[in-house]
């Protein structure tokens, strides 16, 4: 009997894993786990789904039997008035308790495991952590990623090394948001009141399947453009990540535009945009002054404003009328209207903002 139950559970398990893994895109789906956190959550999902499908199966069998077998055949029949059955009632109290225990133990274990952020607290001689820490600041419809150890800031495209734990400090600067990279692991809220901490891991195999780019989402209603508050995660092998950090750190001064048009664009940028958007990665400015995404490596990014594909055309569209692409964003109306010529120049300048040559 026990063997039978075990066998049933196992086969159910396999079947489900098979069905579920066909679901969704590798860069977005929780069913295509690409890291330790997502993996342990996925296993919990499978375990709970298996138990629950088992429960549903039992209920369904009894249910179908009952509604087939006990239909009224004769209008005068009066069935026996049964009060209950202690044996049965104890049975269906105890079995669910056992099933829940089977689920509760790994749940509690995983909950503690995923909350273990002790490496964030261990400071070395320089007052920095050995672990990679990233401060995430969520803002109305854009994300800022600060690397406190490396002393650089970027936005919208989070860059992380693969196959190691990455620790996050999470907070919001205006209203509550929630930081979610489905394929790498569950979400955590960015509160306005306090800093939340958690960790994720991005494995290289998952990153390959996802084409090196995971999708990140805001998971807490935050205003009209909540649906468009996307970000991307570039998961790079450790050496490429180090290279990227070095390249970023190498930008001490705003990069000088090379072509004439781009120089013209830079002039416009310095007049109208630089008040909100920094083009150097240093984290020296206070948070309150960092009101728009840092654009140091804008040209390397995968999207314009988090949602449009990176292309000259889309940059122009965005600059012309941001409201049309992200309603209620904070950029609309903050700068004078741009002529076609100015748009061209500004776009060329922005496209040239790259650290990865």
């Amino acid at each position, binding site marked *: 009997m026990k063997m039978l139950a075990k066998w049933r559970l196992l086969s159910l398990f396999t079947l489900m894993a098979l069905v579920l893994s066909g679901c969704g895109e590798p860069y977005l789906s929780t069913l295509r786990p690409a890291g330790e956190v997502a993996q342990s959550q996925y296993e919990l999902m499978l375990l709970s789904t298996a138990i629950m499908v088992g429960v549903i199966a039992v209920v369904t069998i009894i249910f179908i039997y009952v509604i087939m077998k006990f239909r009224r055949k004769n209008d005068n029949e*009066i069935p026996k*008035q049964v009060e209950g059955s202690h044996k049965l*009632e104890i049975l*269906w109290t105890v079995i669910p308790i056992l099933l829940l225990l089977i689920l509760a133990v790994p749940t509690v274990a995983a909950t503690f495991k995923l909350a273990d952020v002790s490496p964030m607290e261990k400071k070395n001689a320089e007052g920095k952590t050995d672990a990679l820490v990233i401060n995430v600041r969520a803002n109305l419809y854009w994300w800022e990623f600060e690397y406190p150890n490396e002393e650089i800031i970027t936005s919208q495209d989070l860059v992380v090394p693969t196959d190691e734990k990455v620790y996050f400090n999470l907070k919001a600067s205006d209203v509550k948001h929630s930081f979610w990279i489905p394929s790498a692991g569950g979400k955590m809220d960015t509160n306005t*009141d306090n800093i*939340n901490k958690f960790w994720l891991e991005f494995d290289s195999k998952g990153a390959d399947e996802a084409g090196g780019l995971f999708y990140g989402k805001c998971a*807490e*209603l935050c205003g009209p453009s*909540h649906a468009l508050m996307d970000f991307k995660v570039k998961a790079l092998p450790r050496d490429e990540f180090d290279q990227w950090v070095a390249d970023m750190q190498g930008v001490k001064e705003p990069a000088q535009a090379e072509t004439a048009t781009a120089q013209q664009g830079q002039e416009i940028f310095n007049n109208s945009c630089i008040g909100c958007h920094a083009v150097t990665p240093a984290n020296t400015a206070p948070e309150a002054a960092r009101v728009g995404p840092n654009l140091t490596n804008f040209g390397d990014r995968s999207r314009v404003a988090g949602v449009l594909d990176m292309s000259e055309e889309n940059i122009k569209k965005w600059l012309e009328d941001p409201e049309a692409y992200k309603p209620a964003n904070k950029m609309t109306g903050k700068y004078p209207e741009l002529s076609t010529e100015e748009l061209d120049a500004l776009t060329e300048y922005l496209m040239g903002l790259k650290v990865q040559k």
Partner: protein
Amino acid sequence: MSTYAQKKGFGATLWDYLTTVDHKKIAILYLIAGGFFFILGGLEALFIRIQLAVPNNDFVSAGFYNEILTMHGTTMIFLAAMPLVFAFMNAVMPLQIGARDVAFPFLNSLGFWLFFFGGVFLNLSWFLGGAPDAGWTSYASLAMASETHGIDFYALGLQISGAGTLIGGINFLVTIINMRAPGMTYMRMPMFTWATFVTSALILFAFPPLTVGLFLMIFDRMFGSNFFDVANGGNTIIWEHLFWIFGHPEVYILILPAFGIFSEIFAIFSRKRLFGYSSMVFATVLIGFLGFMVWAHHMFTTGLGPIANAIFAVATMAIAVPTGIKIFNWMFTMWGGSIKFTTPMLWAVAFIPSFVAGGVTGVMLASAAADYQYHDSYFVVAHFHYVIVGGVVFALFAGAHLYWPKMFGTMLNETLGKVTFWLFLFGFHLTFFIQHFLGLMGMPRRIFTFLPGQGLATGNLISSIGAIFMAIATIVLLINVIMTQVKNEKVGNDPWGDGRTLEWAISSPPPFYNFKQLPLVRGLDAYWLEKMEGKKEMTPAEPLGDIHMPNNSFVPFVISLGLFIAAFGAMYRADTSWGLLVLILGMAVTLGAMFVRSIKDDHGFHIHKEDLMDDDNDKGAKA
């Protein structure tokens, strides 16, 4: 007072309903108002599904979508499900315990009008600058940042209607404790009455936290306080706690009466007494109790830490046990019974697998570490629609068909009822089943659109198609209601033929004083026991005597109207010169009406024995 048999004009009928304190008429008011808001909420749901049918849709704008989704949730929970549940509790519970009315008929009327004016106030936001747009949970940081008056409408409207609900809950508690017919011990109460009892206790303890939270929000938004203003030392997480300390019991406030209705239906249409009655009672009480211990499972990702998350995870899982007990008891009520598949029974039968599906995803959500993935995704949307639609709405449809004869004296058409059922059942599963997978595939909830190329398009389209079936089903039900009321074929005491509890021992609809003589209750399923002994009626527990009845009153309407006016004043006080004046005026109306009520003695009236005896001779002529 023998004029009640007269045929009345429209004006007189309207006045009668505006002033009524009769639990049966208040039930009808709740049914009409709740039904109206249900249709409104349904339309909002349709807009949501149209907008999400295809990627990058622009059927509605982003900001407007947030208003729709907020109003859909708020309307369905507070203004549709709650009042519809109250409709059945009002219509049936006093009859089930053999009472003449609820303990405080005046308060019953006040409760309704408060709910009604609160609901109307909330919905006026559509025409006065925009509806609330921070979700039905109205999390504080977003609510404080919202620029329109929408959130003010939300806070004030729910405050007014919440007061009505609280009053209603207390009234039911007192009624059940004090007004049971002779012989109706607690353990002989029908399951629906037990559900009403536990639900009312939940209301008593759950609504005050909401009231507190809403007051904090009202003060913050309208009177310059800083409870939720982080920059000034406030804290937004407090709102989350207050809201969910209310919000979780709230879902049990909705589902327990649904369980009650189904318990009645399973017993009636299986011709069998409820299997494991005492364990059902125990399970109901336990669910109610545990319902208060689990609120933080809505906040697993808020960052409460692993200890809190683990405790609340295990507590939440525990709720599955009493719920499971109920499911098996229902199935074993049918086991060995003689099942007749009437429309109410179809809903009840379909409820079991639908609700189990919603229940098990609830257990999955309880697993905190995994919930970090489910939380605020479409998986959650699927889960709570499975329990609320598959549980509560199914029960409301079932209850409407079951109790329609008792409330209106005529039966809804069974064929149309079954058409509604099959369309709705199909549409429901088509809409919501796929949403589990959309959530797991990375779709966050409350998004006004989604971009192509994320693997979400097909699922959303299927979901939207399902919604159409539910809409058609509801239209069929409306047609059914209109046809039935136009035909108006009167039925007898026990139109289903298998009624077990006291409400089926009395005419349909019952006379305004309910039982002429209080019935003697000799066990569980009192009426069934008498029927099995070959009797047609209950044995009276008292000789025929004068019946003391309360007078109708317009005061509850005026009290509620005053608060409705005052709410406008509170809202516009800061930006207009007349706001404060209106606030004072409204409060004056309310307090004045309360004052009048307090100093004016109203002893009610008596129906004399002789009139009651006359009544026997012209049965059927009663309006």
